[in-house]
Structure formats: structure tokens, C-alpha cells
């Protein structure tokens, strides 16, 4: 009986350890978006995003603090937070999903897709993002480029301003993961 108990505790500890050992977290991250419109191009970068990636299962999640998008003009940042993203109400954008199409034993760039739920401005959508993964010793690099239609996430553009802001923005994401 004691042996069974020991075995039980041992396996539990081991399994927890194993699960954790497969988990990677971001040591550096950059998410930027670019909106290209007739009057003014708008771009912003966020380096405060956190992400966890479970290599064994493919589960991935990231959380973007909206207020940390930095713009060239401080008025743009104010409008972005105040008028478009309503940051006080919706402080974060998140993604939770699964990455498929990779093998962690390969070291070249691998084209992968991540399917899951993307939440922006309080609106959750099922999305499939394509990107690439590159495994190297002790480090994983993830990249993705995708488009977001503002209307999908109920981000309204005032009529007077429509020509100032593109209805679709291009988002580029670069994460570097290390094991937890």
C-alpha cells in the first residue's frame, strides 16, 4: 500500500514536472500594427505582450496590454486608447488556441497555423492565424502576420475620420520563447 502511495505521489510530481518542462514563455515580444490610409499612415508597436506556449500540446496563449502600444504622435496614442479601443473598459486583447503543423525536433523555419479565439475590444472571434516557428537550443522564435478588420471587433471609426484610418490593419507579431 505504501509503495502504491509513493508511486502515486511520484507519478503526480513527475507528470506535473513534465507538463511544465514543455512550457515556454516569452522573453521578448513585439506586436506592431500598420494602417495605411490616404492621409496618414499609422503604426504602433507593443513590446509588453506576454505569451505561453506549450510545445507538447501546441496550446498557446498571449495577452496584449492595449495601453502599451507606442505611437509616433502622442495624440494618436490618446485617441487610440480613448476613442477606438476604449482601453479603460477593455484593457487587454487576448488569444488562446492551438498551434499545429510543427515538429519540435526540426531546426529550420516551419510554417504553422494557430487556431483559436482572438479577443479584441471585448469581442471574441474564432480565427486561424498563419505564421512560422523556428526551434533552436533553448529558444523558440514565433512570427505571424495577419489582418484585422476593425468592424469585426466593433471598433468604430467616426464618419469624419474614415479617410484617416484604414478599415483593415496589418498586425505583425514576433515572439521569442524560452522554457519556464
Amino acid at each position: 500500500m505504501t509503495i502504491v502511495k509513493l508511486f502515486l505521489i511520484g507519478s503526480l510530481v513527475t507528470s506535473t514536472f513534465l507538463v511544465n518542462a514543455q512550457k515556454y514563455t516569452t522573453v521578448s515580444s513585439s506586436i506592431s500594427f500598420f494602417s495605411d490610409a490616404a492621409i496618414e499612415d499609422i503604426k504602433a508597436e507593443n513590446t509588453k505582450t506576454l505569451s505561453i506556449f506549450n510545445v507538447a500540446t501546441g496550446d498557446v496563449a498571449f495577452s496584449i496590454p492595449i495601453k502599451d502600444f507606442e505611437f509616433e504622435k502622442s495624440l494618436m496614442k490618446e485617441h487610440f486608447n480613448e476613442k477606438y479601443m476604449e482601453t479603460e473598459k477593455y484593457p487587454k486583447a487576448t488569444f488562446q488556441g492551438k498551434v499545429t503543423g510543427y515538429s519540435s525536433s526540426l531546426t529550420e523555419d516551419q510554417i504553422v497555423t494557430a487556431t483559436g479565439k482572438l479577443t479584441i475590444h471585448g469581442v471574441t472571434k474564432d480565427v486561424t492565424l498563419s505564421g512560422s516557428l523556428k526551434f533552436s537550443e533553448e529558444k523558440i522564435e514565433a512570427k505571424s502576420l495577419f489582418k484585422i478588420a476593425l468592424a469585426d471587433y466593433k471598433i468604430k471609426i467616426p464618419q469624419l475620420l474614415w479617410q484617416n484610418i484604414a478599415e483593415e490593419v496589418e498586425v505583425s507579431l514576433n515572439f521569442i520563447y524560452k522554457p519556464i
Partner: protein
Amino acid sequence: MKIVLSFFLVTFYTLGIAQDDLLGELEKSEKLTSEFTTATFKGTRLINGQTIETKSKGELEFIFAHRFGKVSDGIYELFGLDQAFVRVGLEYGLTDRLGVGFGRNSVDKTMDGYLRYKLLRQQSGVKSFPVSVTGFGNMAVRTSPRKEDADFDITLEDRISYTGQLLIARKFTSGFSLQLMPTFVHKNTVDGSIETNDQFALGIGGRIKVSRSIALTSEYYYRINVPESNPYYNSLGFGIDIETGGHVFQLVMSNAQGLTERAFLTETTDDFFAGEIHLGFNVTRTFQLKRQKRDN
């Protein structure tokens, strides 16, 4: 057997948790931070007077303000639109907290220069603070009347006045902000029969956002030490802020016509409730002269 079963259950449960709650894990690992409140008001002016807002570093604001004649003058004067007083001004953000500005108002042909500094900033999060406090100080020179037109031997010193103000504001919600303005005005030379050199006032003002780009504003200054013989009124104003990109349009109505502190705080000649209301507007355009530095 039961033990083995529960062992498997527990293991799967643990694995299940590990798979499902990555976002929860992220939340736990996030550092707790504090945030400064931004955009308590749309602009640096509420109606006639100042707000706690300063320009960000490297931003230049061009302010063009108009006050028409009295609505009560009727159709002959097109409800005041036939007359207009103008203030043209510039304000620049030396740092994110320190601003400098100057302007000229056609009322009494007054030139003014000022500094404002954000002393305290409203903050929420780990560290929190309930209000923002900005100090404002200006000096204004009225260049009218000309020396030869004055009824006494007027010197430059006689033309100068100073204003010191503490602007204390709280953004209660994203749609509602309130501001208190204890104010001190010193005029070098006054008509002692109707007013004193040092005058105190307490202002209160606020804004309510009605949409993402439109807000209703109001402002009232109560003068504290007013002699009984003083013919002037407390200034009161209401306005609508409309924001589009780098512009803010403020449509206002007020019993004050002057746009420097001395003029609208201590020399408002009209009675709001007798219909002696001046329509007007402030238009501001912000230019970013220096690009913001990125964090990394």
C-alpha cells in the same frame, strides 16, 4: 483499483488544467502596474479658462479663439456676430509636464505669456492618487489705451497683471471629469473705488462626454472678495467640444468676452441671465514637432 483509478483521474485533471488555463497563468505572471489617467479634458481650455491638461513633449498647439458680441443686441448686430474679439495663441510642451504659451487677445489689446506644470497626476493601479493638479501662472500686458489716450500718465507697470491658479481635476469615469480652480489675480493698477489689486476666485468646471468625439462642458468662476461697488459679473460659460483628429473645436457661450484671466475673471461686464451672452469658439490644432521616443 480505486486508487489507481483516482490516480489516473488526478493526472488527467492536472493535464487538463495545464492545457486550458494558459491565459489564467499569464494573468498571474503579469506584473501589477499603475497607470496615469489621460485625457481628463479634450483641450487645454475648458471654456475661457484653463484645464489641467498640458501638451506632451514636443507638441505645439495653435489656438484660435473668437468671441462675438452679445446675443441680446438683436438682429441689427446679427445677435452679436457683427463684432468679434480674437485671441491667437501658441502653446508648446517643453516636457510631458511643463508647458509654455503666449498669445494676444484683441480685448484691451492684451498680450499674455504663461507657464503651466503638472504637479500631481491622477493615477490608478498599485499606486493610486485621486486627482491631477496643475499649477498655472501668467503675466499679461494690456497695450490699450495708448499713452496719449490714457486719462492718467500710464506706465508699462500699470498695464501688467498676474494670475496664479491651481487646477485640481478628477476624471471620475471616462465620460465625466470635474475640475476646481482656486485662482488669484493681481492687477498692478486698479480703480480703487470699485476693485482691489488682489482678487481671489474659485472656479468649478466639468465635462460630460456624450459620444466618443463630443463632450459638453461648463465653467463658472465665483469671485470671493468683491467690493459692493464692483460692477462686474462672475463669468459663466457652456460649451460643446468636438474632436476630429488633431483638431478640437469648442463651441461656447459665455457672458465673458475677454480671453485672458484678468479680463474674464475680474472684468466681465455682461449678465448671462439678462441674455448678454457671447457666442464663440476655440479651435485648436496640434502639431507634433518632435517624434515620440520608443521604449526599446
